[in-house]
């Protein structure tokens, strides 16, 4: 069986397109849309390498695991993948990385990079939330730990990822009070 779905990915309207029942979102991104930045890690919803962002109507953002969620789950939703964060020029080339992406580069946060798209997405959701609901400076460390706890990294051991997000939050005006 199949489903016919529509969705908005990184600001672009996709569909209507037919997907087979067994098509998980990550397969849809890779095979149908050639968006290969989202990485397939454990395939069981544990490691969060594959997470994408869904912008909900109530102005919240959900972090969703694309390896265990069918493409049909995203029908009618607004999705952002790691390809959607940087600014691009008229030729479609990356002209400016997002603040989270830059922070990870500056801190040498990742080594093999397999988990990075997941970390970028989760950290982006956190930074955007803090822009709407700033926190006290002394809460930053715990907030970062809580927010990134589901993302697994097997190379650098988290310290540089966490430090990058923490520093970004502390130096960006409006995220803390």
């Amino acid at each position: 069986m199949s489903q016919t779905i529509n969705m908005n990915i990184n600001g672009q309207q996709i569909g209507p397109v037919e997907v087979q029942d067994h098509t998980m979102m990550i397969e849809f991104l890779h095979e149908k849309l050639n968006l290969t930045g989202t990485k397939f890690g454990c395939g069981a919803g544990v490691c969060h390498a594959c997470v994408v962002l869904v912008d909900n109507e109530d102005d919240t953002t959900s972090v969703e695991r694309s390896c265990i969620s069918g493409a049909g789950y995203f029908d009618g939703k607004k999705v952002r993948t790691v390809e959607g964060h940087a600014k691009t020029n008229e030729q479609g080339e990356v002209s400016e990385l997002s603040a989270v992406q830059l922070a990870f580069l500056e801190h040498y946060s990742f080594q093999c990079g397999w988990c990075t798209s997941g970390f970028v997405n989760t950290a982006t959701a956190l930074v955007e939330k803090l822009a709407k609901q700033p926190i006290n400076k002394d809460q930053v460390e715990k907030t970062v730990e809580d927010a990134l706890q589901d993302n697994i990294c097997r190379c650098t051991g988290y310290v540089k990822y966490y430090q990058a997000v923490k520093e970004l939050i502390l130096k960006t005006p409006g995220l803390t009070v």
Partner: protein
Amino acid sequence: MKNIITLFMSLAFLLLSTQPSLAQTTSKDQIEKGKYLAVAGDCIACHTAPEGMPFAGGLPMHTPFGVLYSTNITSDKETGIGEYSYELFRQTMHEGKGRAGHLYPAMPYTSYTLLSEEDTQALYAYFMSLPAVNQSNRDNEIFFPFNLRFGLGFWKALFAKDIEFEKDPSKSVNWNRGNYLVNALGHCGECHTPRNITMELDQKRPMQGNVIAGFEASDITPLRLIAQGWTKPDLASLFKNGYSNKGTVFGEMSMVVYHSLSRLNEADMNAVTSYLLDTDVPVQSKPVIARIPDAKSPGHNTYVNMCSGCHGLEGQGKPNIAPAMQSNATINRPSLYNSVAVLLRGIPSQKYNATTAFYAMDSFEELSDEQIADLINYMRTAWTDEPPNASAAQVFRIREELEGLDLIGVGSGHVEF
């Protein structure tokens, strides 16, 4: 000759010197026995606070009458039970009357009353051997009039009788041992037997299932278990690993498995499973129910989009991630309480031993009552023998109850933005 005398003397010396240690051995055996019985009775689960010292008490228990805190049962003389004589210990276990007076029946003395004298003595020896932990008991937060302990005396006079365990001569030794483990030590009925309006265990409906704190302690009568296709190895696997081909344990039962059932010895495991299935001979297993799901059913897209990633398009599950839905005992039963509760609450990740673990299940509270009913009916049709008669109204009532208990979404532990 001299050698013979020396030999006799050394023998006599040996005998004399071993006599006191013989007495110690008996007591050591008794303590070891008590330790095993305490495991089978799962004392640690209630008498230990989260991250607290073992048996030092302090676990909050939420009851309809307020919050009770379990007590310190280490050998500390001031705050524990170190000053308890055997008689007082026995009275506490069998009659629910300790130093503080009548005990709330959160302490399952209505089951422990069935304990043999020998076992009660062994338990006493064990608890007295535990290192003393000085930790004062917390005051209960039970509201009037239930905070008046003399009221418990009336309740007990009516409903809690000190009775002896009676063996059923028509059954095997194995079955009777299982009965003792399940009903006396294991106090399974305290959760699995429904209570009537006076909170007394309704012995007319033993083990027929009961909703407690937002999950249903399953109907574990032989009739139901056999209808669901349980065999002795299936049950033993569930009790040993928290997992079997009929699904996983969750909620409070996962702690019972972890602390108690998984540590039963083989003979006792066989006794328990023989008693629960009411037979000493192997039970014929039933084939796994694995029909091709109906793609036109209204629950189809929900299952495919939100469940199949872990539980499989054909309900086959993923080892050590998510259990199979085929013949899953949570769905394959007339009551839909746990199916709904699991979907709305989620389940935290569970690790049973070095090789068996299951990953957390998210809460799917965003699904409407109708979508949940459709989803359950879809799974029932494909993978159980139950009729697809779950209704949105039933789901609504369960959701309402879980909302009242503040349990929606508690299990998933998911980060929200």
